[in-house]
């Protein structure tokens, strides 16, 4: 047991205690949490900064608005229902298309209008928000994901998570939905996490439920070696979160839309630590390097360039044999 702890420390793997006390505590002032916990705020900031976001169709803020929503939803065949203050993917429903009697959920299953109205009501009452606070409902555009990840996705939209420390991208991973995760890219629910080499934008290792895997559990296709186009541009969007919010330890969730290109889904002030497992390397080493070089890094481009040169996957290890 202590051996595991020692090895983990050696490899720079940080746990929740270290993240909370050391990094989040230091870098994220509490008064700024609002900007990322409330997805409506985040959208506003993103639009101001010129970053594309999924279009907000409707914002439901009170119970009586629900009944008027039915007609409005008819205008949009596909959409996503999200609690504005939710976390960990709770309360999110992704709708594929309208069918007889209701709508079809991404990943299967039918919802009637009553189901949807009930769900909206729950969200408004704060069932999915932190601390049970009253909440709003976001009905937004459902992203048409780029065919890049088609072979390794089971319904739903895969997204790209980049952890940005003090404005410098530190680590990245792709999150792929599975049947188990009900079409959501959330790792807690059974999605697949894939490490990404920051230098090239190529996927490296994959894992599900914290254990390494080689193929997608539903499609059986290999996961590593996929190259993400426009990767540098994606990293710049991610690094922009620092200018946008002022938070020094952020998880940036991006998604590649077939038509609109990279879009910002949401920001996370308490990004999870599974990204270390997906990349098979600890965060601490990278964070320390950023701390050492931060003074000398000026603008956005310099920060991203630093990231791409310093954090190459070869420097850690590759799945097919080459060890450091």
């Amino acid at each position, binding site marked *: *047991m202590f*051996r*595991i*702890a020692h*090895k*983990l*420390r050696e*490899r720079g*793997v*940080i*746990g*929740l*205690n*270290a993240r909370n*006390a*050391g990094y989040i*505590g*230091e870098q994220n002032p509490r008064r700024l949490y609002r900007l990322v916990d409330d997805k409506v705020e985040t959208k506003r900031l993103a639009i101001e900064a010129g970053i594309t976001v999924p279009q907000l169709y409707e914002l439901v803020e009170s*119970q009586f608005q629900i009944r008027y929503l039915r007609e409005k939803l008819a205008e949009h065949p596909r959409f996503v229902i999200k609690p504005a203050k939710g976390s960990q993917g*709770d*309360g999110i429903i992704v709708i594929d298309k309208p069918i007889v009697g209701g709508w079809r959920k991404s990943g299967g299953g039918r919802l009637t209008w*009553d189901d949807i109205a*009930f769900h909206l*009501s*729950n969200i408004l*009452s*704060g*069932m*999915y928000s932190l601390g049970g606070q009253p909440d709003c409902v976001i009905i937004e555009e459902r992203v048409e994901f780029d065919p890049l990840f088609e072979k390794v996705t089971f319904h739903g939209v895969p997204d790209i998570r980049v952890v940005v420390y003090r404005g410098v991208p530190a680590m990245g991973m792709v999150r792929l939905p599975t049947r188990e995760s009900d079409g959501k890219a959330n790792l*807690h*629910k059974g999605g697949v996490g894939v490490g990404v080499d920051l230098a090239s934008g190529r996927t490296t290792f994959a*894992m599900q439920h*914290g*254990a*390494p895997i080689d193929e997608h559990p539903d499609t059986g296709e290999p996961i590593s070696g996929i190259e993400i186009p426009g990767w540098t541009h994606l990293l710049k969007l991610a690094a922009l979160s620092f200018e946008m919010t002022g938070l020094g330890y952020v998880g940036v969730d991006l998604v590649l839309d077939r038509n609109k290109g990279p879009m910002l889904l949401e920001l996370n002030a308490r990004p999870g*630590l599974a990204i*270390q*497992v997906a990349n*098979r*390397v*600890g965060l601490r080493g990278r964070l320390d390097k950023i701390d050492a070089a931060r003074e000398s890094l000026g603008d956005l481009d310099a920060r991203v360039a630093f990231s791409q040169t310093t954090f190459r996957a070869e420097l850690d*290890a590759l799945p097919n044999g080459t060890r450091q």
Partner: protein
Amino acid sequence: MRSRHVFALSLVLAFIGLSVFVYKVWVLDFPLEEDASSQNWSLELKATFRADGGPVKAHVMAPQAGGYFSVYQENFISPGFGLTQGGDDVSNNRQFVWSIREAEGEQSLYYRAIVYQFTRSTGLATDPPSHAKNRREFASTAEEAAIHALLREATERSADNETFIATLKSFLNDDILSGNAAMLIGRAAPLKDRVDLAVRVLNEAGIDARTVHGVALHKTARVTPIIHWFEIWNGREWTPHRLLFEVTAPTESFLPWWRGDHPMIDVEGGGGVRIGVAVSQRAESAITSAMLRGDVTTSPVTKFSLYNLPIESQLVYRVLLLIPIGALVIALVRQMIGIRTFGTFMPVLIALSFRETELFWGIVLFTVVVSMGLLVRFYFEHLKLLLVPRLASMLVVVVLLMACVSLLSESMTLDVGLSVALFPMVIMTMTIERMSVLWEEHGAKEAIIQGLGSLGVAALTFTVMSLPHVEHMVFTFPELLLVLLATLLVIGRYTGPRLTELYRFRHLAKR
């Protein structure tokens, strides 16, 4: 930088706490261990009778503090009846009178009390004997002769008062009596008659004695018999003596209820009186004689000691001061082990209620109520209710569930009424709600694991809070909580891995 600030602050707090503690122990002689700790008992007397339709006066005896016992929190429960203290001539007993202007039919009166039983006696009764009362007239010359014969018999076979008493007792200990004793009260005389006889003989012999009646606080019993023994005046105080007939409990467990020839209950205006006494042992903490006397050994400077508060306040603080201990356990379990619970401090409140129900029954009660609550919650899903009314409905259901469970379970003793009231129903409702949301979003396994985790942490917290010296130390030395606070501050800057993380990231340690 921040860490240094925290460490400095905690050092200061720990230093203050420890220095006051050391001062109290070395200079002021505060005891590090409890002296004369006690068992707690719940006592209930139920008296039923048939009222004749007119005014009713029911005189009932109440136990008094003294010797090994202290009596607290008395409750007289008698709907419709008025209660007054005192009554007719009852010598040094404590008597209450229930009265009502008009009553007909079956009536039930209840007396309930909490009794603390010490391991060392706080002293015996010292009221001087009144010779006039103790001497009774003889019913007949035959009786007089028999008693004198018995007295002579015992005297001949003994050398002094002490051996006389022992000899007399030996006559009355036999299952089947013989000789003069048998002639007076019958061969298979009950305990009460034997004790009465012993006292009569002793009084005739010039030794002041009186009968004592009460119950043995020995083990929990739904129906516990009234037992009888006697006390002998040795010039300074009344010493208890008992016969070795019928009753096997030790003498120290005898709670004196009333003394002398009076009945326990006497009803004017009614008949068919039946009485039953139930006793049950409580799991709650001990009270010390220090708390009762309001002093701690013989030291003078105890102005700021919590022992100077009235007993009821002391009892409250004893529990309150344990809460930081519970918080420490939770902080450790969460930060070092990584167990998540439904609600950060919910286990502390559950643990506090375990103090009323005992650990095993507490766990059973918790599990049953949460499981049934979940069933109801899943049903509520179909009803599509708004959130807050749904939560409120769950709360009502939980309260009803608690009531049903305690009514149905036979092995729950009369304390159930108290423990049900204190079991944190609101906490349970929130636990059920969170558990069901987790169940829906993340699956049954996750929900059950976290549920068991919460219960486990509650049980652990309870165990730590019940460790023998913990309560005494925290109550006698509340400054130690500063040390506890210092520890918590340090834990607040702990950046090491949690135990659960060692498992979660185990693949990263391989290769």
